[in-house]
């Protein structure tokens, strides 16, 4: 049947109107709206920052990821070899080797492998990356998860706030001097002064706050901190049972401790330190209780007389380095390789951070005895630093002394029970000493604190393998194998293949 022309025309016109009208309506409602929605944030940034630099523009888009790259680029030499996190959540960008290569070029990159840090001297730096994204387990955040012999740690600026009250020398003495000094020194001006420092910082605020009782308030922004002593001159004879006390509150845990400087009769000076604050944003009392014994022991070790010792300064160290887990979330660590220093370490005053650094220096040069001697001096000045004990433990292990290694590791764990690596290291020593049960216990404890890391998963896998608990071993190797761009991954994959063959063999039906 032939349709008349008028119908055909009508159909064509309606069809045309439907299609073209529909297209127009669609452009106006959907396409344009979507494009405008997409363009608006860009335009907002463009109009607000028309002359933004390359780094600023990249930070607008990539946020912390680019900020970290730019920071590392600005704080490392162009011939650096940098170790970076594995390519898993939460380091999808921060552990992406090609992205790192793009931004850090011509610096070279090395994947995660804790074993290589001491053996491969070519590695010069370690990236410190907290991670982004949403891993299922919040314990995953923070990298590196293994100890690093740091020469210098530069990081994103972090503000530390300290409130100090009741700073005093203990009144256990019977003579007249104790009466004048056994009081809150905060009441007396001047404020604490910055006495010795190995840090890079900005002082934001420093004043007395007059609440119910007067408080001294310090706000500092660090980008590098080894130590930063803020003290007040006192001049008190150091006798038995003298103690230094203060109440303090800090916004970051493990960031501030109490210090006391002692002068010996030969005019040599040594700074003794207390345990650091254990909590954040709550008041706690810190003290150096047995200062006389500590000073005497130290004097003896150095060959100095313990007669006529004097406390000449007391104060705080709000620049305590946060070794691990790194609360300063982003930065770059320069490894100690025994390189010459442009500036000598502080020599006129003996303090724990200097000896720790010297210990690292000799350790890097494989001069173990010298390293131990320096770590021991650091331990005498700051016996409550877990890392000093851990380093001593590692040196004893190198000397083939497992008993002392275990002692030092246990001491470190007692002081800092929530550092997974301490438990892992102790477990590893037990494993080497054929104490598999103790090793397993320690590995399990380490996994409770932080299950990430191929080394831990591989160690657990190997231990279960030895015990012929193949299911458990498989699970751990499987987890370790998921860590892309990680040194332990190859071992895990090899073990998985072997395990597969073994399981196939075991599951074969008997003929």
């Amino acid at each position: 049947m032939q349709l008349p022309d008028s119908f055909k025309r009508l159909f064509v016109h309606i069809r045309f109107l439907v299609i073209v009208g529909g297209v127009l309506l669609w452009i106006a409602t959907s396409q344009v709206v979507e494009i405008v929605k997409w363009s608006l944030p860009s335009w907002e940034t463009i109009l607000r920052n028309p002359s933004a630099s390359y780094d600023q523009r990249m930070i607008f888009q990539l946020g912390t990821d680019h900020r970290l790259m730019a920071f590392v680029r600005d704080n490392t030499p162009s011939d650096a070899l940098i170790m970076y996190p594995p390519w898993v959540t939460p380091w999808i960008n921060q552990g992406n080797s090609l992205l790192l290569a793009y931004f850090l070029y011509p610096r070279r990159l090395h994947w995660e492998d804790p074993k290589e840090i001491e053996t491969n001297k070519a590695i010069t730096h370690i990236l410190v990356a907290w991670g982004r994204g949403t891993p299922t387990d919040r314990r995953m955040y923070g990298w590196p998860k293994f100890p690093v012999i740091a020469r210098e740690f530069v990081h994103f600026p972090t503000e530390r706030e300290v409130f100090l009250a009741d700073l005093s020398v203990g009144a256990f003495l019977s003579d007249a001097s104790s009466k004048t000094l056994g009081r809150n020194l905060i009441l007396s001006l001047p404020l604490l002064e910055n006495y010795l420092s190995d840090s890079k910082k900005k002082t934001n605020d420093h004043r007395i706050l007059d609440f119910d009782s007067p408080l001294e308030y310090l706000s500092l922004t660090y980008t590098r901190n080894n130590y930063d002593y803020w003290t007040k001159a006192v001049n008190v004879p150091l006798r038995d049972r003298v103690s230094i006390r203060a109440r303090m509150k800090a916004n970051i845990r493990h960031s501030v401790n109490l210090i006391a400087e002692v002068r010996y009769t030969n005019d040599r000076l040594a700074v003794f330190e207390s345990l650091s604050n254990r909590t954040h944003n709550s008041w706690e009392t810190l003290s150096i209780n047995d200062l006389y014994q500590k000073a005497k022991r130290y004097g003896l070790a150095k060959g100095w007389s313990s007669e006529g010792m004097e406390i000449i300064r007391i104060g705080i160290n709000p620049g305590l380095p946060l070794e691990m887990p790194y609360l300063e979330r982003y930065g770059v660590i320069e490894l100690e390789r025994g390189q010459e220093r442009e500036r000598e370490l502080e020599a006129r005053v003996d303090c724990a951070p200097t000896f720790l650094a010297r210990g690292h220096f000799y350790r890097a040069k494989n001069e173990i005895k010298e390293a131990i001697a320096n770590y021991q001096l650091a331990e005498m000045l700051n016996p409550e630093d877990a890392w000093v004990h851990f380093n001593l433990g590692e040196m004893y292990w190198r000397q083939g002394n497992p008993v002392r290694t275990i002692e030092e590791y246990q001491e470190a764990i007692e002081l800092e029970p929530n550092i997974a690596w301490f438990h892992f290291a102790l477990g590893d020593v037990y494993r080497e000493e054929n104490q598999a049960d103790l090793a397993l216990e320690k590995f399990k404890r380490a996994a409770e604190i932080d299950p990430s890391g191929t080394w831990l998963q591989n160690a657990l896998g190997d231990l279960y393998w030895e015990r012929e608990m193949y299911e458990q071993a498989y699970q751990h190797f499987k987890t370790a194998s998921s860590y892309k761009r990680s040194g332990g991954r190859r071992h895990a994959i090899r073990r998985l293949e072997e395990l597969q063959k073994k399981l196939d063999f075991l599951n074969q039906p008997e003929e």
Partner: protein
Amino acid sequence: MLIVGLLLPVVLGLTLCWLIIPDAAIPECFALAYSLGFGFLTLAMFFLNILGFKFSLVNTTILVSAIIGVLLLFTGKRNWLRLRSAMKVNPFTRIKQFMGSLSAFEKILIGLLIFFLLSHLVIAVYWPVFWSDSLTSYDLRAKLFFETQSFPGALAKILDRIVNVGYGFAILQDSPMTSLVHTWLYLCGWASPKVFYPLLFISLVALFYHLLRDYVPRYHALLFTLVLVTTPYIYMYSTNSYPHFAFALYFSVGTFYLYGWIRRQKRSFLLLAGIFLGLSAWVRQASGIFFMGYLVIVLYVGVSRRRFFAPLIFSVLYFSIARWWGIYLQRFLHFHSMGTLGSISQLPVFLPMITRFFNFALWNEVLAFFWKYVLLCCRPIFYLLILSTPLHIERVWKHRFLFLMVLSNLILFLLGIYITILIKEDLHQASARRLFLTFLPVIWYFIALITAQLQFSNGKSSLVGNSSSSKRQKGQ
């Protein structure tokens, strides 16, 4: 130097354009010159390296200038004179005349087009390269090329930089065009290579309009050009330095010219089709499988219209550009990879799988994947294609070869998904979606052609008389 970075490729493209299609209109000529020029500039850089020279600024400029000189000898003074005489006319007078001839609706369309294109240009140029893949693959490679000015040098550098990760090969595997464009712009002093992409977008828009205008009324061509510009997926991707948009441009323009050849049998269109499709493979190696579909159509048309050399010319042009990178990787850098999906080199791998092509459950999975993930950003376009095709069946018949091209692209795309699932057992959704971007301009072109308003005379349909197309047909 910054201007030279853009001008030299355009001059190269212009001379090529005059050689291939001497009667092209000036806007078409410039749009072609930009895309052709950068394509051939990167080929020149590649051949310099093959011959053992570094693709430094000086070396490349000398080679390209020499090519331009030789081409000008071939084309003679004729085209320069044509250009000069065209330039003599006051452009403002021309624009005024053109604006005077526009209806209010057309003026609105042009205003919107200018607005969106300018916004696109500003956004693209303001933001540096920041998308993860474009940084880690294409721009990283460009920076290495820029520093070493050679392919083996770049490979050695990347292997040296990323200690104990054998990643260098993956970086060099993809076709090099966009990276070489970045390299060229870096060599010319550009801080960001992204200026290339919005200009390429403008080039696509100009060609799309121009090639559409040959068949449809002006308002219709303008309307669908605006539709193309405001397609969010195209708009967003073309502000970024992914190669997918560049691939889409070369592939679509190749398709438009191929269709132009089928309609008009003009050899220059066939040459341009072969070159543009070849350049699409020079951008990404994914065009092989779709080229096969086109080749079948060209074979049919060639045989049925006794143009026996057409398929040969078409294939030679395509392969002479497309295969170089693969050969270079295998012979010079000793890569032995499978190649990416769509590469011809994979055919021997696919063929033994033919018996597994009748797994209907898997086909169902493929269609679900296509619908759910691939069409996610462009479902309305697909609806419009499905709706307008049966409604304009008589126009579809008229443009049946273009319809076949669209159809072959869709079928081969689905086949590609099928094969990828067979080989890899999983498929990256975003990758598939990005590849589909290639077909959007072609689909819009097809919809625009079939939906154009008809003029009736004596009950028969015919297009409104179009001066430019009739001029071309006369000049053939």
